[in-house]
């Protein structure tokens, strides 16, 4: 956490997003501080992806308040956001480099800068030498690395990672987390969703959510202490129980 932690990168208060009669977000309060890695933890259907998509400007909140980097989510602030989708969203026919160049230019980088940033991003994710390989010939892990490179090629201030390590082997998972930390040390705020609990422990702070609401938020150690257990997994269950019974998180 090299950056100042006083500002808020994302601020959600009473955030509601309904799909028909289902409220995927049901009055969520959450602040992501500038410069931190915040892990959003919850089971499937807890509202993690809905929250990330709202921050990315893809979903309009039904009610409540949401600011991203001090602005309402949308095209204006989108320049400063990198969004790594759950499954690798890439152009299968295009080589790795063309994918990166495309997203760099989509975010408004001039050609020369896009080229140098692409080269730099490929170094970061250790894909140099694979520039000319079409995505469809890449392994699942390399796709995910390319996916990350596409999300960060334009140098975003805020990186949204939606379950970035699903289906990734343990070795590559550790490597991806090294990249996340490296990017964070370079000043990028990271919001990462996961239901892999040991990943949560790598975050500066963890927000536990269930059914579109906040259960508890704090540093991993704080949560473990508060729940009086040894793993985030157990902490989640204990704190959710406590929350459901009306206790304070």
């Amino acid at each position: 956490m090299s950056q100042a932690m006083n500002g808020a990168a994302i601020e959600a208060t009473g955030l509601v997003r309904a799909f028909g009669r289902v409220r995927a977000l049901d009055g969520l309060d959450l602040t992501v501080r500038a410069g931190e890695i915040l892990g959003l933890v919850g089971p499937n259907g807890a509202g993690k992806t809905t929250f990330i998509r709202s921050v990315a400007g893809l979903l309009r909140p039904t009610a409540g308040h949401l600011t991203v980097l001090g602005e309402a989510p949308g095209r204006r602030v989108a320049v400063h956001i990198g969004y790594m989708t759950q499954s690798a969203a890439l152009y299968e026919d295009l080589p790795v480099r063309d994918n990166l160049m495309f997203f760099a230019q989509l975010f408004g980088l001039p050609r020369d800068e896009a080229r140098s940033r692409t080269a730099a991003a490929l170094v970061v994710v250790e894909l140099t030498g694979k520039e000319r390989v079409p995505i469809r010939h890449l392994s699942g892990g390399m796709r995910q690395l390319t996916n990350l490179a596409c999300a960060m090629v334009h140098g975003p201030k805020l990186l949204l990672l939606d379950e970035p390590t699903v289906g990734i082997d343990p070795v590559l998972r550790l490597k991806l987390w090294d990249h996340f930390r490296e990017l964070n040390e370079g000043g990028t705020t990271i919001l990462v969703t996961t239901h892999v609990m040991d990943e949560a422990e790598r975050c500066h702070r963890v927000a536990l959510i269930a059914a579109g609401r906040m259960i508890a938020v704090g540093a991993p150690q704080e949560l473990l202490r508060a729940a009086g257990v040894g793993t985030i997994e157990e902490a989640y269950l204990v704190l959710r129980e406590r929350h459901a019974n009306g206790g304070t998180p």
Partner: protein
Amino acid sequence: MRLSRIAAIALRILRQFRHDPRTVALIMIVPLVVMALIGYLIGDPGKEPLPVAVVNLDAGADMPSGHVSLGAAIAAALDRNGQLAVEPSASAQAATERVRSGAVAGAVVLPADLTQEVLGGAPVSIDVVVMGTNPGLQGPVIGAMQEAIANLAKTAGAAAAGFKAPPLSIRPVPLEGGVGLSPLDYDAPILLTFFAFFLTFLLTSVSFLRERSSGTLERLMASPASRLEVLLGYLLGFIGFAMAQALLILGYATWVLDVRIAGSIWLVLLVIAILLIGVVNLGIALSFYARNELQVVQFIPLVLIPQVFLGGLIWPVQTMWPPLRWLSQLFPLTHSTVALRAVMVGGEGFGDIAGRLLALLAFSVAMVAIGVVALRKQRA
């Protein structure tokens, strides 16, 4: 080999169909619709007669048996022909104007001295004015005239002894284009517009579907790019590609097949470009209603068959039941076919096809609007 395994596979396929009602509907409905259309369009009953202007200037001649007018006889024969709707016209000039405006398929001009000359044994040729760009329009008119003259010879020969086959002939007068052109000359514009439409629609809808299913559309929408920028990017990319295809077809038609292109090649490309703006957006809009490539393919007959059958590509629009005729005016291929034939076969200019261009433009603007609305669903 175990029967139960084979049965399990067969039953699974049938079960899958049950969960895909759209495919089933398409398999059942499309052949019926197509057969109904073809049955209607090929069969005579129910078809509207083709409007034809007849100018009868023939003064006739007084014979011992009484006053004879071959002109009146021919006009009456045309009138009796169920395929034509004859409208009398006062002068050749007025009738020609009706042909030019497209109000009638052709104009038959019966000269003033027709009966006199024929009785005197002199050969007479009767002018049939046609546009010369659409064989579906000029063919029936010329055919009906040939029939009328042949019948005249029969009845007249029976009525008056010594009056053999009158030395009558038909002289087609194409205002543009021609009547002796090869079928390919007439059909090249159709092939051009059909391929441009079909391939662009297929490419756009499939590639947009992939954009959606691969998640890259999500990424595009989370970027600073606006919906309009995305649409314009798509337009430019696909139209560039489709124009290259159009040039290839045109080049092959001109140099290899020796097809006539009387008008400006730029005007041909303009017609195609305007058409394709609409097609790209139609493809984008419809791709939102498809979950996979197979479903996109299912849209093809829905989009193409009515246009091909009712748009004047095969049978002239003018002979269709009026509600179908009005419907055909909503189809872009109707207008692009007429416009391309006018330019390529008839050598017409920008001003002559401006109305058709406007219709195509209206289609394209409507489709762009639908495309923007469809994209809005992606960012809500």
